[in-house]
């Protein structure tokens, strides 16, 4: 109580402080999700070395409705993390964040300008589109 740090609650609430904070939250969550999927994917695909029956058994386990939904979420996470990651790469190299000047009231931070916000929402839209395409491919053949 005395220390008064927000702690992990400070990370977990994406509703305050606008689009950049939302992107920070989603980038972190999707990063953790993708790492978990990556490890699981390495493990599941390694069944190939145990022959055809082991591979088909693994496919039967993953090629289900639940498996397809999980894969759709992974596709969305991947698309957002990649697109927003490129935005961060550019911003963290000092590009697209504006230049220092002489701020005039009402202050509008250039680093949180329309360009950056647009890139965040484009990343979200790309994730949604990728998920829809994923659903079309995964469920379209069922």
């Amino acid at each position, binding site marked *: 109580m005395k220390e008064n740090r927000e702690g992990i609650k400070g990370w977990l609430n994406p509703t305050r402080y606008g689009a950049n904070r939302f992107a920070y939250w989603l980038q972190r969550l999707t*990063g953790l999700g993708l*790492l978990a999927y990556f490890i699981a994917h390495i493990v599941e695909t390694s069944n190939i070395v145990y022959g055809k029956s082991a591979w*088909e058994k693994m496919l039967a386990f993953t090629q289900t409705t639940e498996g397809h939904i999980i894969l759709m979420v992974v596709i969305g996470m991947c698309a957002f993390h*990649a697109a927003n990651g490129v935005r961060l790469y550019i911003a963290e190299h000092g590009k697209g964040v504006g230049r220092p000047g002489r701020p005039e009231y009402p202050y509008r931070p250039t680093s949180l300008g329309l360009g950056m916000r647009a890139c965040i929402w484009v990343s979200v839209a790309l994730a949604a589109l990728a998920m829809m395409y994923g659903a079309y491919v995964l469920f379209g053949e069922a």
Partner: protein
Amino acid sequence: MVRESSIMKIHYYTGIAAIVLVAIHIMFRLTVPDGYSASLEYENVIANYKNVSYALVLELILVTVAVHGFNGLRVILLELRQGDAWESAVKWLCVGGAVAVIAYGTRTIILAGMM
């Protein structure tokens, strides 16, 4: 000791490389004439592993994503708690995790390529 800027430059480059490599990986699933499900059939997957160029792409994905992912985990864990013992444990956990995943995945790529 490796400087943090060097580690984070690796983080950037592996991230960008992973986007390209994973895109190639996904294309291999989607461009098979008989569709996505056919691309996952045992014979097709083995043929993929026997294709040296594609096996190399898989190995590069393995390395770039493992390095990028475990470094991301290291960053999150370093920000979560501080202290010399914790930070040392986090470093070795993440290095160990990346090495283990790369080793296990490489084993799969090599064995499947020889089948």
